[in-house]
């Protein structure tokens, strides 16, 4: 009414509300209005139009009210609710500064809380495993920009390497070393996984983007299917069991003559889990530390430069072969470490644990966290894995909430929770521009 160009209030709003109400009717009539019910003659349809009527009325009047008060030209707009990139980037950065030390302290202190339920330590182990996997994959996806949908393959290679060496090789050829199995196998599993990373790297040297993603996806499936069908070697679907526990540098976690006796402590079954917790924490920190250090070395810069522009890299004299293979190998190595840990923690592995959904989960953690951001990945892993486990009772709604969270994050923070890439060199002052301000698409 105030602006002359607009139709008098009523007509346009009524029309809009009527259309919305019609859509509601169409949607809700079959869903809420009709129901099948068991009857002694079989299935019958029960009609119940009241809920439909209420829904239509709510939509109609709700729409009218929204039109009247919120959607006028100079009024409040729903899109205002979505924070602008700049604002969220700032919030993200400040939060990041505060959150990182807090998270580290919590991570270190968690098992020391007296009387803590073992469930939380288990949950912590699970979250940290995914944090480590996320950080490992981040080298490949976040830094080197190679979209890898088969990361779980390296996790599997690590787990199976450990399981096979510890259950077959060591008892038969080096029986004295059984207590050290984990510590011997951990580096071996990492090396083997790195080797498989290079094996995958060679055929995909010339591929990029979507094509690379497809091949890595296939690679992940090949590994799983081989594990499933090579019965004599891997035990097929039965998997491998009785994988030895990790020891505290040769000290077992058992009632007599174990870790507790050696340190003069009372035996408790929780000790083993606290140990496992700290083990994966150290492994995760190792991954993080390696990544941070590598980023400042020429090879790390080369990864990032390759992500930005492969052709420019070549013209600057960088060998793409070397750069790609090192990224694949190092990413795979950390996946292999995580796999060994998984095998020793579970004591049993089978190909089921290494399905595509795992790769997708790890990738989702990396993408949601903000590719290349260590802290973002840790938060994403905490929310996705921890949150999922914690709210197990609401199983039915988990995927719904997960989907919603994905959509919201992609609207608000299309480049992930923490998207500002920190420069590797600082000169006098730290000047970062959020990635939101930089052209999309090349990342």
């Amino acid at each position, binding site marked *: 009414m105030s602006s002359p160009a607009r139709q008098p209030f009523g007509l346009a709003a009524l029309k809009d509300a009527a259309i919305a109400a019609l859509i509601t009717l169409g949607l809700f009539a079959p869903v809420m209005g009709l129901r099948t019910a068991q009857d002694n003659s079989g299935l019958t349809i029960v009609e119940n139009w009241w809920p439909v009527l209420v829904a239509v009325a709510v939509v109609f009047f709700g729409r009218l009210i929204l039109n009247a008060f919120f959607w006028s030209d100079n009024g409040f707009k729903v899109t205002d609710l979505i924070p602008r990139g700049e604002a969220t980037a700032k919030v993200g950065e400040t939060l990041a500064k505060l959150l990182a030390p807090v998270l580290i302290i919590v991570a270190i202190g968690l098992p020391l809380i007296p009387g803590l339920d073992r469930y939380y330590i288990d949950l912590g182990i699970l979250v940290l495993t995914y944090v480590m996997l996320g950080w490992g994959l981040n080298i490949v996806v976040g830094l080197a920009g190679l979209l890898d949908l088969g990361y779980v393959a390296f996790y599997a290679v690590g787990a199976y390497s450990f399981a096979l060496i510890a259950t077959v090789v060591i008892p038969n050829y080096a029986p004295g070393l059984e207590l050290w199995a984990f510590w011997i196998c951990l580096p071996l599993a990492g090396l083997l996984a790195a080797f498989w990373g290079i094996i995958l790297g060679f055929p995909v040297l010339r591929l990029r983007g979507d094509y690379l993603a497809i091949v890595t996806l296939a690679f992940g499936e090949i590994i799983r299917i081989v594990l499933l069908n090579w019965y004599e070697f891997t035990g097929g679907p039965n998997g491998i069991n009785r994988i030895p526990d990790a020891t505290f540098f040769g000290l077992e976690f058992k009632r007599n003559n174990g870790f507790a006796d050696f340190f003069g402590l009372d035996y408790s079954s929780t000790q083993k889990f606290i140990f496992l917790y700290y083990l994966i924490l150290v492994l995760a920190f190792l991954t993080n530390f390696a990544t941070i250090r590598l980023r400042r070395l020429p090879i790390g*810069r*080369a990864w990032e430069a390759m992500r930005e522009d492969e052709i*420019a890299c*070549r*013209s*600057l004299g960088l060998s793409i072969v070397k750069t790609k293979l090192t990224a694949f190998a190092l990413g795979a190595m950390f996946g292999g470490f995580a796999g060994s840990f998984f095998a020793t923690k579970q004591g049993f592995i089978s190909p089921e644990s290494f399905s595509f959904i795992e790769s997708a989960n790890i990738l989702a953690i990396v993408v949601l966290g903000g590719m290349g951001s260590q802290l973002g990945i840790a938060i994403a892993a905490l929310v996705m894995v921890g949150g999922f486990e914690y709210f197990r009772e609401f199983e039915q709604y988990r995927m719904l909430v997960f989907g919603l969270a994905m959509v919201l994050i992609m609207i608000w923070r299309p480049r992930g929770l923490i998207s500002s890439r920190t420069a590797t060199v600082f*000169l006098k002052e730290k000047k970062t521009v959020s990635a939101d301000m930089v052209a999309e698409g*090349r990342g």
Partner: protein
Amino acid sequence: MSEPLLAVRGVKTYYGNIIALKGVDLDVNEGEIVALIGANGAGKSTLMMTVFGKPQAREGQILYRGQDITRMETHEIARLQIAQSPEGRRIFPRMTVYENLQMGAAVTGGQHFASDLERMFTLFPRLKERMGQRGGTLSGGEQQMLAIARALMSRPRLLLLDEPSLGLAPLIVKQIFGAIGELNKDEGLTVFLVEQNAYHALKLAHRGYVMVNGVITMSGTGRELLAKEEIRAAYLEGGRQ
């Protein structure tokens, strides 16, 4: 005369079955600025890329200081003190200016990094102001300066520039061409320049080549070419500043 720094001999390059360079001969002598001009699709950029081994020439030879580099890998060629500022600049958008320059020095192993950096900042003072900023947030002209500076960080003897004036305001073009001239005069840097902007390019260059449909049709000193009627008609009329 001594042997040229870069010699292109009867080079034919194909994209699949389509021939893009139909036998090109061209020399770049030590200490020269050589400009290659031509219309869109003439094959100028293809020649520049062929020198860098991507795509490789199917026939003919490319000699750099007498060494045959026709079949070498791009990154190996880049290690022979040939640097390229590719078409469309291709800086690393999410990395800072400083990191971009570090990448340029990747081949040298960072031996003279600090002094080279200082040199780049005297040549392009704008880059110094923008040092900690992401490449992608620079203006087009600044990005071009960064691309050239990045190429120079590898201490090249031969600099290949693909359309440094692309999409830039005349004033910036003048600055950039000025910088190229300075480098050539002060440090004896050899420059091979591919340009649409024929007037500026030929004015700067000692010698020029004109390419039409994958063959060199004319060559001569920059001044000679600028004076020629055909060139004025084809490349300069209306485009003169």
